[in-house]
C-alpha cells in the first residue's frame, strides 16, 4: 500500500473521530470517567495516528523531503491535542497539552520560514484547520451537559466582580425613592451619600434619616421652591465607592447638590470593599475599573465567555499551582491577614479632589460633611484629633466647597441620647444633622454653592422662616416675663395672630403678626410652670375666615389647614400619602394609615397604622382605635380623622363593624373591596353622609384647603432670647 494511502486513511480516520466528537457526549471530562464510545473513538485515533506514522516512515525511507510532511505533521499534532482534551487525559497532563500546542506553533513558524510556497500554503491551511477545530471544540463543549463539565470550564469567572452598590440601589432604590429620570429640571435635587450612618442603620424606616428630615424642612421653609432629597447612603460605603457611584450613576440623575458624609469607613481597617486584601479601596478601584470596562466590551465578552477559554484557563491554573509552591502560598496568606486602612488620608484627599472635578464637569456642587461620632466633642477639638476632618477642611477651603459640621450642636446635647452606638445617629441625632445641613445650604459663604443656587433660581436672601418655634425655658429665669422680636415676612394680605402655647396649655394670642419685625411680650403669669423646664411654642393662628375649599365634605366643618391625601391599591400604584400643611405625616404602611387632627388648630395629634392585610388582630385594633376616638376632644371640639389605604383595606376586616363605626364619623358605610383604594375624611361631629369618602380601583387623590391656610414658612425669628433653649 502506498504511503499516500496511509495518509489518506489516517486523515479519514481523524476526520471521522472529529465527527463523532461533535455528538453530545453522555459524559465528559470528569476525571476517571470513560465509556465504550470513547474507547472506540480513541482506538480510531490511535489507528489513524499509527497509519500516518507508517506513511511518514516510508517517506523517510523513500528519502522524500521532510518539508512535504510538515502540513500533515501539523495536522496530526493539532488533532491529537484536542483529542486528548476530549478524553480529559490532558487534564491530568496539562503540561503535555501545552507542549503539544507549542510544537504545533513551532511547526507552523518553521514551515512559514522555509520560504517554500507549497509549505507556506499548507501550513496556512493547517492553521485554518486548527481554528476550525477550535470552533468545533467550543460547539462540542457547549453540547455537553453542564453537570458533566469540570466547574472551572462551565463558566469563566468575572475578571472583576461588579460594584455591589448598583445592585443595592436596584433593590432598595434610594431608601425607597427613585428620582424621575425623564422629568424636567424643576426640582432642585440633593443627594446624600455616605455609609451606614447616612443610610440610617439600624433604623427600620428611612423617614428618620437626615435626608428625609432635610426634605421636610425644605418643604416647610422654602416657599415657592421645589426640592427633592434622595438618600443614596449604603452601609459600608467609603469615599471610593461614593466616587464610583457618582461617576456611574448619580450624574445621570441630574443632581444639584451632593452631600458627602463619610470618613469612618475609610479609616477602618479590614477587608476592602472590592475584596482585594492587599490593596486599599482606591488602588483596587483603579485596577477593577479597567477590568470592568474590558468586561463591558462585547467582543471581549464574546470570546472570554466561551467554554474553550474555560479549558485554557483550567490548564493555566494547573500550571500555576505546579510552579507556585506551598511556602509562597503561606507567605501570601500571611500578607492577607495584615490589617490596613481602607483609604489612607493621602488617597482620601485625592478622591475628594476628583469629586470636586466631577462636580465642575457635571454641574453639581459637592458639600462635604464632617461625619459625627457619638460624644465626639466640639469641632475645634475634633479637628485636632481627626486627620480626615483636617483633610476635608483643607480640600474644601482650596476648592471653595461648603462644609457641614453638626459637631458643636451635637456636643451641646452631649448629655442626651443621639446615637444608637458610637457612629449611628438615632432619629434625634439625624434631625440635628439635617438642621445643620439646611443652615449650611442657605448661609454658607461658598461661592460655588451660592452661584449654583442663584442659577437655579433660589433666593438666598429669603428670611429663615418656620412653621412654629419651640423652646425650653427655666421658670426661675423668666420671672418677669419674656420679650421677643418676630416677623412674618410672607404674610402678604393675610391677617393672622401670633399664638403662644405654654406647657401645652390653651394657646394665647399675643397680637397680630406683621411682615416687619415686631416685639411681643409673654406675661410672667403665663410662664409659671410646675416643671423644672417649661415648654413654649409660638405659631401663627389659623385664619379667622376659612375659604370655601376648606369645607370638609357636606358638613359645616372647615379644615384649618391644607390637607392632601392619596391612596393607591395594589394594582394602581401601591401608594399612600397624608400631608398636613404641606408636611407628610403618614407612616407609609400597608392597609390603613390614620391621622387625627385637632379640628380647631389643625395640629396633628395622632398618627397610626393598621396592617389589616397582614394581621387579623390589626383589624380589631383599628376598630377599637376609632371607637375610642369618638369620646376624644381637642381644643374643645371633636377631632378630624383622615384615613388612607395602601395596597388593600379589605382582608381580615369585619366590614359590618367598621362600616358602622365610619358611619358615626360621617361615612355611609362604604368600604374598599380587595385591593381597592380608599380615602376618608370625617369627624365624630358629622352626621351620616357628610364625610368625604372615595373608593375605587384607581389612584385616588384629595385636596382640602390651599396653601393660604398653611402656617408653613410664616414666622421669622431674627434672634433667640438668651433665656430660651431651642427644642430641636
Amino acid at each position, binding site marked *: 500500500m502506498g504511503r499516500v494511502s496511509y495518509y489518506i486513511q489516517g486523515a479519514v480516520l481523524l476526520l471521522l473521530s472529529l465527527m463523532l466528537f461533535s455528538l453530545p457526549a453522555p459524559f465528559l471530562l470528569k476525571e476517571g470517567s470513560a465509556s465504550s464510545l470513547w474507547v472506540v473513538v480513541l482506538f480510531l485515533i490511535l489507528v489513524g495516528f499509527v497509519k500516518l506514522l507508517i506513511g511518514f516512515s516510508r517517506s523517510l525511507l523513500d528519502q522524500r523531503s521532510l518539508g512535504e510532511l510538515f502540513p500533515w505533521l501539523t495536522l496530526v499534532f493539532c488533532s491529537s491535542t484536542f483529542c486528548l482534551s476530549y478524553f480529559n487525559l490532558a487534564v491530568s497532563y496539562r503540561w503535555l497539552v501545552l507542549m503539544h500546542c507549542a510544537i504545533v506553533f513551532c511547526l507552523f513558524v518553521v514551515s512559514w520560514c522555509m520560504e517554500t510556497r507549497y509549505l507556506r500554503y499548507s501550513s496556512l491551511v493547517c492553521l485554518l484547520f486548527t481554528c476550525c477545530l477550535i470552533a468545533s471544540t467550543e460547539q462540542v463543549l457547549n453540547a455537553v451537559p453542564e453537570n458533566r463539565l469540570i466547574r472551572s470550564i462551565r463558566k469563566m469567572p468575572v475578571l472583576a466582580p461588579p460594584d455591589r452598590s448598583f445592585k443595592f440601589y436596584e433593590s432598595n432604590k434610594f431608601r425607597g425613592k427613585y428620582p424621575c429620570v425623564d422629568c424636567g429640571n424643576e426640582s432642585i435635587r440633593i443627594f446624600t451619600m455616605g455609609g451606614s450612618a447616612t443610610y440610617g*442603620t*439600624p*433604623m*427600620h*424606616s428611612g*423617614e*428618620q434619616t437626615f435626608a*428625609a*428630615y432635610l426634605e421636610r424642612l425644605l418643604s416647610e421653609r422654602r416657599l415657592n421652591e421645589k426640592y427633592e432629597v434622595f438618600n443614596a447612603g449604603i452601609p459600608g460605603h467609603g469615599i471610593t465607592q461614593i466616587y464610583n457611584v457618582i461617576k456611574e450613576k448619580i450624574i445621570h440623575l441630574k443632581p444639584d447638590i451632593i452631600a458627602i458624609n463619610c470618613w469612618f469607613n475609610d479609616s477602618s481597617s479590614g477587608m476592602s470593599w472590592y475584596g482585594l486584601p492587599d490593596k486599599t479601596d482606591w488602588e483596587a478601584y483603579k485596577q477593577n475599573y479597567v477590568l470592568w470596562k474590558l468586561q463591558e466590551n462585547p467582543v471581549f465578552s464574546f470570546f472570554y465567555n466561551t467554554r474553550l477559554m474555560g479549558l485554557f484557563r483550567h490548564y493555566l491554573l494547573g500550571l500555576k499551582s505546579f510552579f507556585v509552591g506551598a511556602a509562597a502560598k503561606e507567605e501570601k496568606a500571611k500578607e492577607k491577614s495584615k490589617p490596613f486602612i481602607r483609604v489612607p488620608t493621602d488617597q482620601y484627599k485625592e478622591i475628594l479632589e476628583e469629586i470636586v472635578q466631577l462636580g465642575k464637569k457635571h454641574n453639581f456642587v459637592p458639600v462635604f460633611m464632617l461625619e459625627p*461620632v*457619638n*460624644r*465626639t*466633642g466640639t469641632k475645634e477639638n475634633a479637628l485636632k484629633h481627626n486627620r480626615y476632618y483636617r483633610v476635608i477642611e483643607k480640600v474644601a477651603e482650596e476648592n471653595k466647597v461648603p462644609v457641614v459640621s453638626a459637631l458643636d450642636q451635637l456636643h451641646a*446635647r*452631649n*448629655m*442626651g*441620647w*443621639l*446615637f*444608637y*452606638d*458610637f457612629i*449611628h445617629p*438615632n*432619629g*434625634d441625632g439625624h*434631625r440635628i444633622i439635617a438642621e445643620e445641613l439646611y443652615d449650611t445650604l442657605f448661609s454658607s459663604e461658598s461661592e460655588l454653592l451660592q452661584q449654583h443656587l442663584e442659577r437655579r433660581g433660589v433666593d438666598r436672601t429669603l428670611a429663615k422662616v418656620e412653621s412654629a418655634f*419651640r423652646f*425650653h425655658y*427655666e421658670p426661675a429665669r423668666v420671672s418677669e416675663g419674656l420679650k421677643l422680636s418676630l416677623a412674618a415676612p410672607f404674610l402678604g394680605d393675610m391677617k393672622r395672630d401670633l399664638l403662644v402655647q405654654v406647657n*401645652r396649655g390653651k394657646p394665647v394670642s399675643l397680637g397680630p403678626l406683621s411682615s416687619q419685625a415686631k416685639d411681643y411680650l409673654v406675661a410672667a403669669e403665663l410662664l409659671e410652670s*410646675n*416643671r*423644672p*423646664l417649661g*415648654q413654649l411654642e409660638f405659631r401663627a393662628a389659623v385664619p379667622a375666615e376659612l375659604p370655601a375649599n376648606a369645607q370638609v365634605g357636606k358638613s359645616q366643618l372647615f379644615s384649618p389647614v391644607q390637607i392632601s391625601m392619596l391612596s393607591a391599591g395594589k394594582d394602581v400604584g401601591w401608594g399612600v400619602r397624608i400631608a398636613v400643611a404641606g*408636611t407628610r*405625616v*403618614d*407612616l407609609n404602611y400597608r392597609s390603613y394609615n390614620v391621622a387625627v387632627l385637632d379640628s380647631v388648630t389643625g*395640629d*396633628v*395629634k*395622632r*398618627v397610626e397604622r393598621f396592617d389589616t392585610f397582614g394581621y387579623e388582630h390589626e383589624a380589631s*385594633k383599628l376598630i*377599637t*382605635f376609632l371607637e*375610642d376616638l369618638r369620646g376624644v376632644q381637642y381644643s374643645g371640639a371633636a377631632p378630624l380623622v383622615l384615613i388612607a389605604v395602601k395596597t388593600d383595606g379589605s382582608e381580615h376586616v369585619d366590614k359590618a363593624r367598621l362600616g358602622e363605626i365610619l358611619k358615626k364619623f360621617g361615612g355611609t358605610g362604604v368600604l374598599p373591596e380587595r385591593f381597592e383604594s380608599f380615602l376618608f375624611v370625617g369627624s365624630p361631629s358629622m352626621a351620616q353622609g357628610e364625610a368625604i369618602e372615595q373608593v375605587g380601583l384607581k389612584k385616588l387623590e384629595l385636596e382640602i384647603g390651599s396653601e393660604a391656610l398653611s402656617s408653613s414658612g410664616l414666622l421669622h425669628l431674627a434672634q433667640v432670647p438668651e433665656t430660651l*433653649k431651642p*427644642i*430641636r
Partner: protein
Amino acid sequence: MTVPLILALWIVPHSFLCAEQTEPELAYAQDGLANSILMAVPSRLASFEKPYAELTSKQRVERKVFGLRMQSLHPAIWGVRFKDRTENRNLVAMRPYYLRISEHQNFYVSKISTSFKFDPIQLRRMKSDPTSSTPLLDIGIGGSYEGASSYELPEVDSEYVIRVSPSPHFKSGIYYRSFENYLHLVSFEKEIKPAEDYSLSIEVKGKRVTVSINGAQVATYLAPTNVDRGLIALRTAWHPLSFSQLSVEGSEERKGKWYPVKRSGMVLNG
C-alpha cells in the same frame, strides 16, 4: 367605742391583705396597652422563655439584641418605642426600654432596685474616648411622651432621670430631661467606680424621690409634681455593665381595688 375601733383595726389591714393575695397571675401579659407608644409584645417569645442552653444560635441572637448592653430584657415586660424601632440586626442598639405597665394611668411605682457593676475601664480611657468608653446608666421615672408620629418631634418627651456614671464627663445625680435638654437637680454624695458592685435603690413616694446606693442614702429630691406615675425607662451607654436582681415594685388600681405589682423582666444569658 372599743369594739368599733377593734373592728376597724381588723378590717382595714385585712382588706389590704386580701387585695395582696388576689393579684391575677401572669398579669404581665396584659401590660400592653391598646394605644401604646411602645411596639406590641411579640407573638413568639420562645427565645426569652427557654433556658439559654436550649436555644438555637438564631434565638440567642434574638435574645441578646433585645435589651441593654449585655443584659437582655423580656419583651412582654419591657418595650421599645415605635420611633426607636430598629431592623432585625445583630446589633444591640442603645435605646431606651420602657416598662410596659408604667404606661398605665393607674400604675404607681414605689421602688426600683437593681444591682449593677460596670465593666472595668481606666480613667484615662473614659476621658479620651467618650464615644465608646462611657459607662452610664439612666433610670427614668415619671416620664411623659406624647407624639404625633414616629418621626416628628413629639409634643412632650420628659422625665426625671437618675443617672449613674463613673465617667468624668458625667455627674451622677438626679436630672430633669425634656427632649435632649438635661437640667441637673441633685448630685449624689457617692462616687461610682467601674468594676465594683453596687446596689441601687430608688424609692418614690408622691413627689419625693430618694436614691440609695449600697444601702446608704445618696440623694433626695422633692419634685414640683408627683413622679410616682409615668413612664419608667432604662438606658445604658455603649460600655457594658452587668445587672442582677432588677425589680420594679408598685401598685395598680383596677376596678377600685389595689394590687401590688412587681416586675423584673431580666433574662439571663448563659
